[in-house]
């Protein structure tokens, strides 16, 4: 258990470090995946439109000048608006795009858990086994049992 926690913590730390490095020293390739070409509406990496070429040269120049990823994105948003970002920013109305899928997944999980609890509670009542017969075999049909009792009584008598 401790080892699993340690591995998880190390993994989280390495992810945070990688994200920090990517923020401070972004590459053209990763920005191309995170930005949209305004004329063809695909990510920059898939576009060879003239404006996409111009955006690439702008990004190269900004990387060379030492801008962070956020600064480069902010300057492109200033020119082309937020639609230039492949993923909407996590603020304002755009926050819905991030929150709604998570809320939907949480709701679905909640409903599933609720249904499972109800199902597991209802099952013992609904499928309550009939009392077993004295020899442990399946119970007899009531009519058959009545006739058997009569026969036994007649035999005893």
């Amino acid at each position, binding site marked *: 258990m401790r080892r699993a926690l340690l591995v998880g913590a190390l993994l989280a730390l390495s992810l945070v470090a990688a994200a920090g490095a990517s923020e401070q020293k972004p590459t053209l390739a990763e920005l191309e995946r995170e930005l949209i070409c*305004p*004329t063809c509406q695909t990510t920059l990496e898939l576009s060879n439109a*003239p*404006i996409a070429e*111009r955006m690439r040269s*702008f990004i190269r120049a900004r990387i060379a000048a030492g801008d962070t990823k956020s600064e480069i994105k902010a300057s492109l948003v*200033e*020119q*082309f*608006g*937020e*639609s*230039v970002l492949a993923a909407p920013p996590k603020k304002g109305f755009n926050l819905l795009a991030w929150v709604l899928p998570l809320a939907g997944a949480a709701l679905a999980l909640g409903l599933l858990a609720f249904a499972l609890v109800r199902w597991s509670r209802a099952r013992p009542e609904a499928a309550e086994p009939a009392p077993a017969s004295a020899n442990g075999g399946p119970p007899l049909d009531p009519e058959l049992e009545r006739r058997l009792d009569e026969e036994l009584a007649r035999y005893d008598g």
Partner: protein
Amino acid sequence: MARRAKLILQAAAVLVVALLVALLGWKVAEQEEGRGLSAALERGERPHPPPLTFETLDGDETISLADYRGKAVVLNFWASWCQPCKKEAPMLQETWERYRDEGLVVLGIDAQDFRQDARRFVERYELTYPIAYDGNGKSLGRFGNTGFPETWFVGRDGRLVGEHIIGEFDEEQLEENVQAALTTATR
């Protein structure tokens, strides 16, 4: 209680779906409005252009088509990276100089472009007519534009007139449509 919660959840789900459908409808209607303008002109109708307001290229003022009521307007959508736009710019400047005293305005709308590239373009071609900046290109869809350059003409009455020119125009085509815009009545 469980029944009430179920009803609330169902109502919320229906509301979310209705909102998404309304959003989709609004987007489709907006696109159709643009496509419809060109078709209406071809049928000989004279629709109103979308009531848009833009920033100027310098970003210090706003420009709206409504500001030019009573004037004829050449509305040219361009971008500095567009090759045919480089051929059109001198012709537009010449037209602006020739007809501005008769009430013609050439309005360039620079879209999907870097502001600094557009400024360099304006300096290079010595353009003095008003230039609006639409970086994210939201106006393109409202007009139903699909590329660069595209040119529309607005009469003095504020309605579209003449042709919707898709791609590069020639001098004759420009002159013909400018005359059509200039000769419209104010009302």
